[in-house]
């Protein structure tokens, strides 16, 4: 199998460019990697994540498909069965729903149903979340559907480095990965060193040290939590911020270690709260850290409502004030 090695590069990149670089480098390194989705070819995707890939690798490797998400994912299943490594782009969070049948009944279960004989190394990239003024059906946070489906890894980067490293790791994984891309961070910028940005799936990382309490978060809510931690200094709180990066598998060890050391935790995500990922995190933390906790684990999440119209979304999305209100409730004694 011929592979082309890519020279490592160091340059300032947006998250969108980092994802693009990860796709390009995986495609160069592994000729079985094939992209397919709506508008991914000529246009380079509506968010330009696949920009230039059809030009470099040709239409067979970067395929503009007919407009049918169930068809796209079902076709990817067949391609994976025959030894290819498909990377599927769903155009927006809410437009991945037609593919649910393929995802839940086949992608998630094939390894199990076939006693390990048939693995499906498929990556499903899904731009998700609000905060970009998107109209109806363009701002869903659907991670809890995926995280509660056994057989799927669920990964979501919050930094430029992780966007690159985790996407490469996801494509290289022999299990199906739901790769959730926080839309509102697509244009965030940082220096990307492609040689250093390697990150296996499954490890949480402490983004900020702090001794008072920890904000446990992921994806689009990471910058909000970092901002809240900065603002909390004025209140005399020294907040740690933990970025989960991978919802499945879940890094119980790191999360428990951090929570035990600080004794107070708030889980923050913009997806709805009821039955959400935050509920799972709060339960796991309580089960593992009960005797170290000075207060119940609290959650700051989107309200339990359909995602609102853009002019009202700021009321729905967890912001700094709502996070600090929760921190204030963590049973502080004088």
């Amino acid at each position, binding site marked *: 199998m011929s592979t082309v090695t890519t020279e490592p590069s160091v340059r300032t990149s947006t998250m969108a460019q980092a994802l693009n670089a990860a796709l390009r480098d995986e495609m160069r390194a592994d000729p079985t990697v094939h992209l397919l989705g*709506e*508008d991914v*070819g*000529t*246009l*380079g995707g*509506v968010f330009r994540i696949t920009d230039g890939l059809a030009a470099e690798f040709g239409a067979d490797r970067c395929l*503009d*498909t*007919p*407009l*049918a*998400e*169930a*068809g796209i994912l079902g076709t990817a299943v067949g391609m994976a069965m025959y030894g290819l490594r498909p990377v599927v782009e769903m155009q927006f969070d*809410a*437009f991945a*729903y*037609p593919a649910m049948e393929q995802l839940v009944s086949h992608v998630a279960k094939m390894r199990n149903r076939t006693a390990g004989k048939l693995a499906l190394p498929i990556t499903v990239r899904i731009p998700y979340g609000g905060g970009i*003024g*998107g*109209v*109806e*059906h*363009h701002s869903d946070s659907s991670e809890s559907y995926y995280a509660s489906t056994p057989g799927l890894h669920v990964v979501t980067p919050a930094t430029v480095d992780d966007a690159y490293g985790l996407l490469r790791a996801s494509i290289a994984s022999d299990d199906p990965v739901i790769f959730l891309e926080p839309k509102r961070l697509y244009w965030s910028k940082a220096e990307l060193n492609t040689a250093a940005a390697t990150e296996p799936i499954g490890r949480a990382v402490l983004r900020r040290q702090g001794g008072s309490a920890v904000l446990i978060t992921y994806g689009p809510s990471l910058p909000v939590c970092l901002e809240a931690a900065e603002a909390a200094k004025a209140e005399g709180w020294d907040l740690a911020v933990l970025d989960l990066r991978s919802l499945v598998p879940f890094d119980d060890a790191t999360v428990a270690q951090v929570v035990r050391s600080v004794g107070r935790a708030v889980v923050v995500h913009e997806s709805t709260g*009821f039955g959400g990922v935050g509920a799972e995190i709060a339960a796991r933390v309580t089960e593992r850290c009960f005797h170290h906790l000075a207060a119940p684990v609290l959650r700051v999440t989107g*309200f*339990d*409502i*359909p995602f*609102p*119209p*853009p*002019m*009202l979304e700021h*009321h*729905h999305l967890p912001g700094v*004030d*709502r996070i600090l*209100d929760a921190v204030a409730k963590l049973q502080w004694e004088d």
Partner: protein
Amino acid sequence: MTVLDHRPTAPVPPWLPGATDPRTDPAPLLPDHTPVRVLGTPELAKHDPELLRDLYRRLVIGRRYNQQATTLTKQGRLAVYPSSTGQEACEVAAATVLRPQDWLFPSYRDTLAVVGRGVDPLAALTLLRGSAHTGYDPVATRTAPLCTPLATQAPHAVGLAHAARLRGEDVIALAMLGDGGTSEGDFHEALNFAAVLNAPVVFLVQNNGYAISVPLTKQSAAPSLAHKAVGYGLPGRLVDGNDVVAVHEVLSEAFDRARNGGGPTLVEALTYRLDAHTNADDATRYRVSAEVEAWREHDPVTLMERHLREAGVLDDALVARAAEQAEALAATMRAEFHAEPQLDPHSLFQHVYAEPTPQLREQADQLAAELAAEAGA
């Protein structure tokens, strides 16, 4: 006798060469060998001049509406606008064939049809303004919410038409979608259900050549999208989608068929979106200007004006009056959209359920307290 008694009781005969049974010979289901045209043909003379003038007037108003809405996006007054510039003939014809009792199932691109059937322009555009999901009353206006998840409205149209028929009511449902939408499973399931249930529903596919950047050649290998009807056993019609009189005629025939118990029809209207997919799209990335210019030569508004003038149906005074009415609508839109919308944060918790759950009440109280604290600060 139930409404489903139209089903044949005798076994379906095997296909024979020359057979005309529509279930075995596809030809009767595909009557059009070329797109139906009326403008520029002797057929035009057979149409009521009043109808022709009304269609023209609506086209002019529709074009101005599209231009004004696009301008409003540039001024930040609309979040996004998927323009139907170049496709006004389809939008206008759809709005015109609908009777008050009929239902429209529009896509995100069909606000012009929605306004054309009488919905207030401001109410029709709240979704795209970003102030509310659906700003009009779908029941009072018999217009389903603008639908963004592609083709998902098509089965709804079938179900509604079927329900009306079960109730013995003369109601037709018109579902509008694009060429890309015909690839979705829901579209195919809708066609099949419509045919099996013999539902009084009409599907209008505006084939504007592209689904965002993806040209029809990558979307479908069928000889035409109208052909897709055949496999499900309903007629597929093909019409020049920039000829408003032709679209009106073909849709009227489909409506008559549905009303007379003949069941559903799929109409493919060949047209072109002259603007980008939305204001957020850069169409130069996937199509050449020569193609756009060629379609400008076949602009639905100027085409109609030219042919009606030639036929002596339209004069300067009528043209001027249509332009005036269009300007008046544009002025209303400017005035209404430049005013700040009334936004109520507490509306977030309304209408999630018939009665808010205890949890939603708690969350509503939380937001109210936050806003009160903010106001006090």
